[in-house]
């Protein structure tokens, strides 16, 4: 609760700081606010507070809050020189991101369907605007509109699902719903099943899982890169946390019912995400599709529900978040210099910018899941989880997809190291360097010694 209040107040303070033309103070205020929020995360660890039956700050919620806040913090650091050329309303963008973060924290800690909805909407509405902050840019406009229409559409599904479940159980409370499932296992209302499927569809839309992913690449590509990095890392993580909280805990008794459709979603997501990513010539678009495929891996943990599912998602999400932040950070720098986000603009990057090339390499290796990076641990845990139920075919399928993944992640490495290009020297602002290096350290550290994060939840 402190966390939410802190972030919300920070958002307002930033908004007003912007109003009174205190541009220099924006970032420091934001950072202080986020660090305070992180402090609260640490302080409330293991306390498992429930707030009015609406939110539960258990370790699950706190861990995901921590990662999303940290991710946001990094993304804020990447704002250096980013917005200035786009608009005067920097404070508003900051505020919107912070508001989205408030929604995210609510999303990961809800204990009542209404909070899920509210959190989701706070987040989504902020993002609709953020996607379109380049007002005169056509792609940005389009991204914003598409995201908005799709978001609102999926919210409709989600709400109808919630309503049906409410009709069946008479409550929005997760515990009550769970009790209903356990208590009436043999006579569950058909409304509940349809509600569950509708919720699954709605949430799949939100996290961009196939076949409800079609908006993802367009929206991601159209949005400003920084916003895209926020959407595809922090927001996605939150979406999964929300998904997980609902399905892994509350709906767990019905696992046999919802697992098959989920499996279809997972397979489709993996296949479509990977195969389409393979054919992209544009780094940003490739990242968009790869983010779809990562949604597939993340959903893996729900196919085989074990005590570790939640933690596995956490590890994977952490790995994915930090690696992606690196990728986006580098993309922003490169695009600022070359004006293009094609793979070609990375050609020969390694010669003049060994540090950038190195961090991006680590990020790509992590996304591809090479050992000694966090991404490997994430994938390993997912495989392990599914192997426990001996879904060998599924694992084989995932492995094939992982192979495809290597192929396109290495494209950029190939471009950087092995291809000749204009020898460009990138300016890496200090804050970028901090973020990139920190993220690499986190990625490698989690890859080499993941024990710190393995038993968090």
């Amino acid at each position, binding site marked *: 609760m402190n966390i939410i209040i802190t972030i919300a107040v920070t958002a307002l303070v930033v908004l007003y700081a912007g109003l009174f033309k205190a541009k220099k103070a924006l970032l420091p205020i934001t950072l202080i606010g986020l660090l305070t929020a992180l402090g609260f995360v640490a302080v409330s660890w293991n306390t498992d507070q429930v707030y009015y039956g609406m939110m539960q700050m258990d370790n699950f919620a706190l861990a995901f809050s921590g990662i999303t806040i940290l991710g946001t913090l990094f993304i804020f650091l990447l704002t250096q020189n980013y917005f200035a050329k786009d608009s005067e309303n920097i404070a508003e963008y900051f505020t919107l991101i912070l508001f989205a973060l408030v929604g995210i924290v609510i999303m990961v800690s809800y204990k009542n369907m209404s909070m899920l909805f509210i959190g989701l909407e706070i987040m989504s509405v902020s993002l609709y605007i953020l996607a379109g902050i380049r007002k005169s840019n056509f792609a940005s406009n389009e991204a914003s509109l598409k995201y908005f229409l799709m978001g609102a559409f999926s919210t409709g599904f989600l709400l109808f699902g919630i309503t049906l479940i409410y009709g069946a159980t008479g409550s929005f409370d997760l515990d009550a719903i769970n009790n209903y499932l356990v208590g009436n296992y043999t006579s569950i209302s058909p409304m509940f099943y349809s509600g569950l499927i509708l919720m699954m569809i709605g949430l799949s839309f939100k996290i961009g899982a196939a076949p409800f992913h079609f908006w993802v690449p367009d929206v991601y590509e159209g949005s400003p890169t920084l916003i895209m990095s926020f959407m595809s890392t922090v927001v996605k993580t939150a979406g999964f946390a929300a998904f997980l909280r609902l399905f892994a805990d509350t709906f767990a008794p019905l696992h046999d019912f919802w697992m098959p459709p989920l499996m279809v979603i997972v397979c489709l997501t993996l296949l479509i995400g990977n195969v389409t990513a393979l054919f992209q010539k544009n780094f940003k678009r490739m990242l968009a599709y790869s983010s779809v495929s990562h949604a597939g891996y993340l959903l893996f943990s729900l196919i085989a529900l074990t005590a570790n599912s939640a933690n596995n998602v956490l590890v994977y999400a952490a790995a994915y978040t930090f690696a992606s932040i690196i990728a986006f950070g580098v993309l922003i720098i490169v695009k600022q210099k070359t004006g293009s986000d094609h793979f070609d603009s990375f050609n020969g990057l390694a010669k003049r910018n060994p540090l950038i090339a190195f961090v991006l390499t680590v990020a790509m290796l992590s996304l591809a899941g*090479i050992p000694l990076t966090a991404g490997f641990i994430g994938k390993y845990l997912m495989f392990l989880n599914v192997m426990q139920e001996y879904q060998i075919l599924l694992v084989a399928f995932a*492995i094939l997809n992982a192979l495809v993944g290597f192929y396109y992640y290495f494209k950029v490495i190939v471009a950087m190291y*092995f*291809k000749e290009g204009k020898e460009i020297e990138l300016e890496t602002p200090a804050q970028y360097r901090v973020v990139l290096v920190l993220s690499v350290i986190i990625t490698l550290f989690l890859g080499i010694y993941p*024990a710190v994060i393995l038993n968090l939840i």
Partner: protein
Amino acid sequence: MEQLLLLLIFLPLVGALVTTFSGTAAKHVALFSSIVSLALTIAVVCNFTPDASTQFVVNYPWIQDLGISFHAGIDGISIITVILTNVLIPLIILTGYKHEYKNGNALFALILFMQSGLLIVFTALDAFLFYIGWEAALIPIYFICAVWGGKDRIKVNMKFFVYTIAGSLFMLVGIIYLYLQNPAHNFDIQAFYNLNLDGAQQGWVFWAFFIAFAIKMPVFPFHTWQPSTYTEAPAVGTMLLSGIMLKMGIYGVIRWLLPIAPAGLQQWGYIVIILSVIGIIYASLIAFTQKDAKRLVAYSSIAHVGLISAGIFALNTQGMQGAMIQMLSHGINVVGLFFVLDIISSRLKTNRISELGGIAKQAPILAITALIIVLGTVALPGTNGFIGEFLLLMGVYQYNIWIAAFAGLTIIFGAVYMLRMYQNVMLGKTNDLTIGFADIAGTEKVVLYTICALIIALGVYPKPILQLSEASVQHLIEQVTQKLTSVN
């Protein structure tokens, strides 16, 4: 004593780090580091008791929640590969001395990094650690080949990489499967050995592991990545690949596949042997037709490895011992061969056999050393190749006489195409291209002399090496037979 192993593994890493930031002195730093490693290896060998036990064991908990520990040690089998690695790395670094590499310090750092990965592979007693090392060794070689390679390097390397990683992912599945079967929920090798898997399970595990190893070795028909990769890779890369990396596959079979899934081996081993023999013949035939010396050596390597794998899968002491010794010899010989070719190509910019000739007149020392290496490769008695191939053939013979007969062809084939190549390249008329060929000097001499010395020494007096591994091999065979009887 444990510290010795840790030092062995992590020294190259430190070396790599220092090398990266040491500017123009990079190659010296790298060489120094590798020589220290070699010295440590000698220390290890001196302290090694030649029995079946695993020595220098280190066992630290690493990721306890997942049952992963940093568990490594050296026994008679791994010591051979450790020696191989640490002997070859300084030589390979030395071969790189003459070249003017762009970003040379990165190259040498990567070599050292790879050394570390290889040593982890060869000493790991924890399946997860083994896997980590397996992949850790792959990344540097990928970069080495792709950055400093020939003009087709990108495509070729991607193929190589995807092949290898595909294999290793299957292996990962196998490892996870074993982990789940293991009631103790850890990756300990001994626990894996003790698992009671039925025949079918062992069959699955066998294939999961075998594909990874087969791609690495490479066994026919998983070899398609190899010749082009060898050709496109820079000389150091080729040497690393053929000299050491290849042995990862062989070592993996001996260390992991055999003891864990002997029943699977029994079920499917004949297929592997047949594949190996097909590979031997196929590679030899192709080698005949090669116009490029580097490709020829690459194919010869496939043929040799085919024999090694046949020997291993024959599942007897001779075959296994032969494999051990041949791993070492093949590593040395093939590095030598590639270095000779590298010397030629760095001077003449070509490796096409038809364009060369008469080098011997211009560069007698090179010709002599090359001859020794070629003879070693064709397994002339008195050279290191002879012992290994002889033992391997013995092993295969015990398994099946016809297969042995076919496998024996390799020796003849090998002799024919290798010597023909030697003849065409070194002897004959000196042409316009080769007329100004300068003889070897400096570091080239150091490397080639060392290699020749090793070839002859091992050929004449292989006993110490055989002794080192004998007990462990014996133990391994016993273990496997015991397990086989218990399953059946």
